[in-house]
């Protein structure tokens, strides 16, 4: 169980995302998760061993380390990545539920059935409209909130995004104000700024995706309102054609189902 499993779970969602959503997923996996696993974990690997305080007093180092790093950067990023990836599961669950409903309809031999077989249902890509639009938009909204909360928590806990070389500590049992030195401060600052920059890019992508979805929604609504205004009682020519096609498909579907069950 590792980040690869998360990739498998979220990969399925990719099919039903918008193009911006696909870019977001790529940025997440390549510039955040991969960098975390391949590089950042090594940089922070020896953080407590190489945290050195200018005192021989036993316990002073432990207490000072705990005082300045209540939760390590690495763990905070891991939690951030987990929380930010989770809303996509809402979409995955909604799609799975829709597929399940369609399979049930198909098995019952419903007249509304538009598919030739179960494989088509399994591989079908659902359009982001109706209730799926609401699920998708809420998932982006939650993602944005989680990103913002974690970035703020980072800023608040570490007084900015810089890692200082030296910290002055006078927590008990340190006998007086003691100098403590952080290991690899510059490298840690570089990675912190990198991760913050990529988080900001992800926030921008999410905002852009949200705007795109909202624009699409309002355009579709105004189109529908426009259509209803101009043709209140007659069906569209296209709609009539579509209805005829649906009837033909449902008739052939009925025959296929009867053949299947016998």
């Amino acid at each position, binding site marked *: *169980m*590792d*980040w690869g*499993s*998360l990739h498998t*779970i979220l990969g399925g969602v990719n099919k039903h995302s918008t193009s911006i959503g696909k870019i977001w997923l790529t940025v997440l996996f390549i510039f955040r998760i991969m960098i975390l696993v391949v590089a950042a974990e090594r940089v922070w690997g020896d953080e*407590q*061993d190489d945290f050195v305080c200018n005192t021989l*007093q*036993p*316990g002073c*180092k*432990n*207490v000072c*380390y*705990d005082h300045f*790093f*209540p*939760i*390590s950067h*690495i*763990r905070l990023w*891991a*939690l951030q990545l*987990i929380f930010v*990836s*989770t809303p996509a*599961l809402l979409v995955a*669950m909604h799609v*799975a*539920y829709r597929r399940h409903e369609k399979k049930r309809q198909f098995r019952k031999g419903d007249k509304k059935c538009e598919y030739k077989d179960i494989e088509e249902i399994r591989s079908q890509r659902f359009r982001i409209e109706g209730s799926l639009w609401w699920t998708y938009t809420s998932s982006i909204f939650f993602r944005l909130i989680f990103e913002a909360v974690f970035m703020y928590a980072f800023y608040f806990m570490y007084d900015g995004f810089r890692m200082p070389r030296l910290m002055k500590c006078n927590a008990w*049992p340190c006998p007086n104000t003691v100098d403590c030195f952080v290991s690899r401060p510059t490298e840690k600052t570089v990675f912190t700024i990198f991760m913050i920059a990529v988080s900001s890019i992800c926030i921008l992508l999410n905002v852009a995706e949200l705007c795109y979805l909202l624009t699409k929604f309002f355009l579709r609504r105004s189109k529908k309102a426009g259509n209803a205004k101009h043709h209140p009682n007659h069906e569209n020519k296209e709609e009539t054609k579509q209805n005829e096609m649906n009837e033909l498909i449902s008739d052939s579907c009925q025959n296929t189902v009867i053949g299947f069950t016998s």
Partner: protein
Amino acid sequence: MSWAFLRDLLSGVNKYSTGIGRIWVAVVFIFRLLVYVAAAENIWKYEHDEFECNIKQPGCENVCFDHFFPVSHVRLWALQLILVSTPSLLVVFHVAYRENREKRHSQTLYKSPGEIDGGLLCTYLISLVLKTGFEIVFLILFYKLYNGFKIPHLVKCDVRPCPNTVDCYISKPTEKMIFLYFLVATSCLCIVLNLSELSYLLCKYSVKCYLKRYTKEHR
């Protein structure tokens, strides 16, 4: 042999679960297993090396560490994850038994071997009760072993061979406490999910039973 085995096991269970059961599997995978492997294991990795006592007496640190941490938090966490995931195997075995039976008799004995009704419903309910039981047992164990869910900075130890009451310092207590609270929160969430699934199944099947009896009587 690693956590991937548990992951594959739970993926198999997912097929025969209700909607709430699938949410439970997702919570266990992502908020418990993934957090454990990606974060918690590393926090507790050097807990013994970084445990420091204010004394040079050989053996004192070892004895004090053993006195305050009879079983490490991470090991208890791992045991909890394993024991809580295992009751779902009962359902998988029962479905396999059903499919085997159909094969042996070469005829359709059930509407669908994976459908939760009859004996499989009992098995499913038992697995839910066991899961909830294990969660509660482990939460109580954590609480009793460590006097609550707090991890102190400093513990005072006077076990032999320490010559007197000695100050011992635990490494990363705040970070450990944050993840301990996270563990407790996700356990409670899983307990709530299990109890809702239990009530949902009991309601659904009692309504079904009642309607069947009602239609029979009317005929």
